[in-house]
């Protein structure tokens, strides 16, 4: 039997069928996440803990020359949302690895399901969760007079960016899950995410870091993602800032989906 590439397979199915299948798989993915408190609770607890502790301990740093804004809490919002989204999105990789281990994934591939729908369906769960996380952290800091200076438009951009960021990190996790087929290997990548967050502008401004660390953090794609959202937290709304925040996260999401698609291709080629 000749192996059919995902693109050819999907073209035969048609767009409407693909969309319907993606919606069904998305629903499965969302319900799956919402039914797992062990996925939800740590992703709320740890970023909240770091946000609260950092604000309470190093918050006075916001008075230092060169610190963007005049308070730490609004400064930290973008980094906290990204941290939460990044940690939670790894579940996309674990879920697909679990499906592979249980044989469900192979059954899905054997059925006339669109390959794109398989990927988008898996990513929908983390995307929805990412949007909820963005709203949660924005709501957590709002009572402390830490609102986005960009107003409603800023919050809309925050949520859209969080969705794309979730797709970004979920896409990379998905690729890893598809390639390895192992929950353990997927979760083993967790330290990489941890390193990516800490060597970025998530908790402290790049301009105030030591020179060599500033160089690393300044060139970390995670910093670009955070700074895009942060501009709207600390400055009034501007279309340029909104386009930058959404553009960076969208671009990253596109790359991640392509990487996940390539991983799926590679897996199909091995069958």
């Amino acid at each position, binding site marked *: 039997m000749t192996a059919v590439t995902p693109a050819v397979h999907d073209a035969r199915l048609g767009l409407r069928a693909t969309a319907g299948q993606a919606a069904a798989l998305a629903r499965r993915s969302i319900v799956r996440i919402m039914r797992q408190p062990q996925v939800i609770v740590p992703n709320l607890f740890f970023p909240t803990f770091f946000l609260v*502790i950092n604000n*309470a301990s*190093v*918050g006075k*740093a916001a008075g*230092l020359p060169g610190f963007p804004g005049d308070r730490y809490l609004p400064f930290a919002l973008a980094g906290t949302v990204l941290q939460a989204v990044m940690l939670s999105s790894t579940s996309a990789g674990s879920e697909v690895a679990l499906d592979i281990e249980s044989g469900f994934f192979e059954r899905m591939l054997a059925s006339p399901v669109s390959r794109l729908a398989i990927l988008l369906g898996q990513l929908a769960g983390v995307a929805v969760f990412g949007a909820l996380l963005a709203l949660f952290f924005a709501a957590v800091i709002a009572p402390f007079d830490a609102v986005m200076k960009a107003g409603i438009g800023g919050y809309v951009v925050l949520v859209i960016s969080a969705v794309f960021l979730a797709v970004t990190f979920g896409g990379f996790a998905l690729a890893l899950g598809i390639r390895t087929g192992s929950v353990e290997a997927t979760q083993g990548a967790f330290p990489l995410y941890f390193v990516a967050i800490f*060597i970025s502008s998530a908790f402290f401004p790049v301009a105030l*870091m*030591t020179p060599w660390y500033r160089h690393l*953090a300044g060139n970390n794609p995670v910093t670009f993602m955070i700074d895009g959202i942060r501009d709207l937290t600390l400055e009034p709304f501007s279309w340029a800032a909104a386009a930058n925040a959404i553009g960076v996260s969208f671009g990253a999401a596109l790359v991640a989906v392509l990487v996940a698609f390539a991983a799926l291709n590679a897996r199909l080629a091995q069958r």
Partner: protein
Amino acid sequence: MIEQRMSLRAVVAGIAKRNLLATIRMPSIIAPSLIFPIFILISFTSGFTALTDLPNFPTDNFTSWYLPFAALQGSSFAGAGAGFSAARDIENGFFDRLLLSPGRRVGILLGGLSVGFVRSTITALVVIATGFALGARPAVDDPLQVLGGLAVIILGAWAVATMAGLWSLGVAYRLKTERAAPLFFIVVFMALFLSTAQVPIDLMNSGWLQAIARWNPITYLLRFVRQGFVTPFSWADTWPGVVTVTAVLGLLFLWTWRALARYEK
């Protein structure tokens, strides 16, 4: 009496050797307790270095400030490994067989803690070496103060490893499952961060954290271990740390001892 003392030593040595071998054979256990504090040290000292520009920050070298904390943090992970080993032994039935043996119970406890001593010593030394490479320097150019500064970090590492070890053993004996492992770490992690880990009490941004940090024994342990690197040695920074740590270790020993006694019932 002599026979009893030998028996205690044999039990401690036997359990320590077994746990040490198990640890060596599983690098995945050792690596996090070494890599994590090194990464945190590099990340925090390079990222948060500007904190020393805050008025009245006790040093202009953030690496010197953070190094002792990073050593304690890594050692706490090393110490909490005792709970892991105990929970694993409980689940696979080895612990019950151990309790049926004629060895003294306190030996089982001390044996479990002993690996934490070894691991925390290694962790502290690695963190100190990394700290020096990153630019940590003693507070004064007195060889005695430098040696003293290194010694108190090692002592602090042992203390925090023992605290974390006793806590995790107490939890393991009570809950009897490896699934309790997150509890070993989360409580220790929170205790460490709700202290003067990042900035002194007066420079904290929130009153609630200042209040917690004032009551947190880790704050006094940090004052003790920062001597030599941040402040010169003084009795005022020494005795609160020694008294607090002794009291906490005593309370944690009772908590763990009672858990062990209950386990047997």
